[in-house]
C-alpha cells in the first residue's frame, strides 16, 4: 500500500523529518505516537501533497506509484485521505455543495458514475447518521464556526464518503468527548476491510482501545525510533517517551 524509504523533509531550511522508513500493507492499521513537534503532522502533510515542504531525500510509493508524481487531487483520487489536525473553515461554501462536488470529482477520477442529487443525498444521510452528524451542520458553510469536535466529525464524514484506500488521521481524537471518540472509532472500524489501511496519529492510548492497531511506531526528532505492537502504546502511556527511549 504505502512504502516510505529514507525520507528527509525540510521546512524553511529546518530539518524536520530525518530518515524515516515506514511500510503499511493493505488492511493494516498503524499508529504513530510521538512528542509535540516531532514531525507527525509534517509527515501527514507531505503525504497529502501540501506545499511548503522540501523533500530533500527519500522515496514514497503509494499503490506502486511514485507519490511525488501526483498532484494532491490525484492522490485523493488514487485513494489517499488525510483527516486534518486543524481542518480549515470555508465561509460561503455550503457543506452540501462541497461534499457533492468532492465525491463526484473523486468518482470521476475513479471512472465511476457521478451521483445525482437524489442518490447523493441518500448516501450522505446514511453516512451522516452513522457518525451522528446533524444535517443542519452539513447545510452550513464548511467547518465555519464548528466546534473542535464538530470539525473532527466532519472530517470522518468526508472520509466515509470518499472511501479511501489509505486514511491518515492526524489527531482526530484530540479534543473529543468520550461519546464522540467512540463515534469516530466506529466510523473507522466500519470502514475497515482487507484492502483498506489506516495511519493513525495520536497522543493517547485510549483511542487505540477502540481502534486496535497492528503496529505502533514512536516518532522522535523526525525518525521512527521504536516500533512494536499495541502493547507499545500501553507501555508508553505508563512510562512516557523518555522511559522507553
Amino acid at each position, binding site marked *: 500500500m504505502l512504502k516510505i524509504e529514507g525520507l528527509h523533509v525540510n521546512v524553511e531550511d529546518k530539518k524536520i523529518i530525518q530518515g524515516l522508513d515506514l511500510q503499511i500493507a493493505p488492511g493494516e492499521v498503524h499508529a504513530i505516537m510521538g512528542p509535540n513537534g516531532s514531525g507527525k503532522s509534517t509527515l501527514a502533510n507531505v503525504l497529502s501533497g*501540501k506545499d511548503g515542504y522540501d523533500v530533500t531525500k527519500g522515496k514514497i510509493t503509494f499503490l506502486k506509484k511514485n507519490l511525488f508524481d501526483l498532484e494532491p*487531487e490525484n492522490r485523493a483520487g488514487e485513494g489517499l485521505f*488525510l483527516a*486534518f489536525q486543524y481542518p*480549515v473553515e*470555508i*465561509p*460561503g*461554501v455550503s457543506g452540501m455543495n462541497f461534499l457533492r462536488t468532492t465525491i463526484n470529482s473523486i468518482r470521476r477520477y475513479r471512472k465511476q458514475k457521478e451521483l445525482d442529487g437524489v442518490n447523493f443525498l441518500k448516501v450522505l444521510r446514511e453516512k451522516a447518521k452513522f457518525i451522528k452528524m446533524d444535517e443542519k451542520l452539513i447545510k452550513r458553510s464548511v467547518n465555519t464556526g464548528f466546534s473542535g469536535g464538530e470539525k473532527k466529525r466532519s472530517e470522518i464524514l468526508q472520509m466515509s464518503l*470518499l472511501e479511501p484506500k489509505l486514511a491518515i488521521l492526524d489527531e482526530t481524537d484530540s479534543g473529543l468527548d468520550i461519546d464522540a471518540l467512540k463515534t469516530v472509532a466506529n466510523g473507522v472500524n466500519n470502514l475497515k476491510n482487507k484492502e483498506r489501511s489506516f495511519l493513525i496519529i495520536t497522543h493517547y492510548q485510549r483511542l487505540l482501545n477502540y481502534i486496535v492497531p497492528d503496529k505502533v511506531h514512536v516518532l522522535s526528532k523526525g525518525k521512527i525510533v521504536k516500533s512494536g505492537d499495541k502493547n507499545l502504546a500501553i507501555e508508553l502511556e505508563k512510562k512516557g517517551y523518555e522511559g522507553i527511549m
Partner: protein
Amino acid sequence: MEKLIEDFQIPDKKIETWKFTDLKKVQEKNNFRPSVKSDSTPTNPYKINLDISNNIFFDPKNNFIIFENGYLKKINTKSDDLEIKSLDSNLENKIFNKKNFTRKDSLLDINSAFLNENLIIKVKKNAKLKNPISIFYYNCEEEKYLINNRINIILEENSEAEINEIFFSNNKSIYWNNVHNYVCLKKNSKLQHYKIQLESKNAIHSSSTNIDCENSSIYNNFIFSIGGNMSRIEVISSINSADINFNIKGLYLAKTNQHHDITTLMQHKHPESKSNQHIKGILQKDSSGVFQGKVIVAQDAQKTDAFQFNQNLLLSETAEVNAKPELEIYADDVKCSHGATTGELDEGMLFYLRSRGLNKEEARKLLIEGFINELFDDIENKELKKKLLLTSKKTIY
C-alpha cells in the same frame, strides 16, 4: 444661453472624493456629447425592443419603465397604487430636500443642464406593491453620447415596493450614462432597491442614489456592478429620524481592464438608527476597484449602530484595489465598526479542497462562488437572486 459640456469641470483626482477615479481623462478621450431631447413625440406605438424583452431581468408581469438610448419609451404600471410620470423641476425641489445631498463635483449640474427625462415614481400610502418596478436603461447607438436622466422615488407612509434598475446595451454602443436618483422614504415604508449595472463594455456609468429616510423606514440596496469600462456608483443617505434600518450590499466584478468604483456616504443625523454596508469586489486581469465609504455620526445621533465592511478578492497580479473606509463619529454612545481586506484566494482553503479531489480550477471556482454567496444570502427576491448569481458566474468563468 445654452450650456455646453465644455462649461463643466469633469471630476478628476484633484477632487478629494475622486482620488481613485479619473472621469475627466475618459471624457477627454471620448468626447461624449450630450444627447438632445427631441420635441417630436413618436407617432407609432412603441414596440419593445427584442434585446429588452429577451433580457433575463425582463418580466412583462412587472411594472416597467423603458429608456432607449437615453429617451423614455414606455411606462407600464400594473397597479393603481403606483404613479409614474414626468416631474416638473419646481415641484421636485419641494418634495426633496436637496440640502442633504450637496455635491462637490459637477455631475448633478451636468445632469440638470442636459436633463433628458425627470420622472417621479410614487407608491401610495399603505400600498404594498405586489410586482416589482423594473427600469430598463437600454443603449444601442454608437455615436458617443452623454445621457442624463433623473428618477425620483417616493414611498408614502406604510408602503412597500421593490425597484430594480437594469443598465444594459447591445454591447457595441459607446456612451456615458449619468443618472441621479432621489428617494424619499416616508414613515414605516420599505424599499428594496437593486441596481444592476451591466453597461456596454465601452460605456461609462456614473450614478448617485440619494436617500432621505423618515421614521421606521427600511431601505435595502443591492448594487451589482459588472459592466462598463468605468463605473462610479454612489449611495448617499440622510438618516433623519429614529428606528431606520439602512442596508447596502454591493458586488463589483471586473473582468478585463474595467474600473469599478462604489462610493457611499452614510449620514446619521438622528439617534437610534442602524446602517449596515457590506461591499465585495472580485478583480481579474488588469482591472481596478475602488471602495470609499464614509460614515458620519452626528453629535446628536446617539445609539447609532453603523457597520461597514469591504472585502476584495484579487484574481490576478495586475489587478488593483483602493479601499478607503472612514468613520467620523461625533456622538459618544454608538456602536460602529469598519474594515477592509484585500487578498488572493486562500492557499489553505485551496489545498483543503484539492486534498478532497477537486482540481485547481474546480477549487478556485468553489471558493469564488463561496465569496459571492455570502453576499447574496439574504436577498429577498429569490428569483432575482438566482438570475444575479447566474450572471456573476457567467462573468467570472
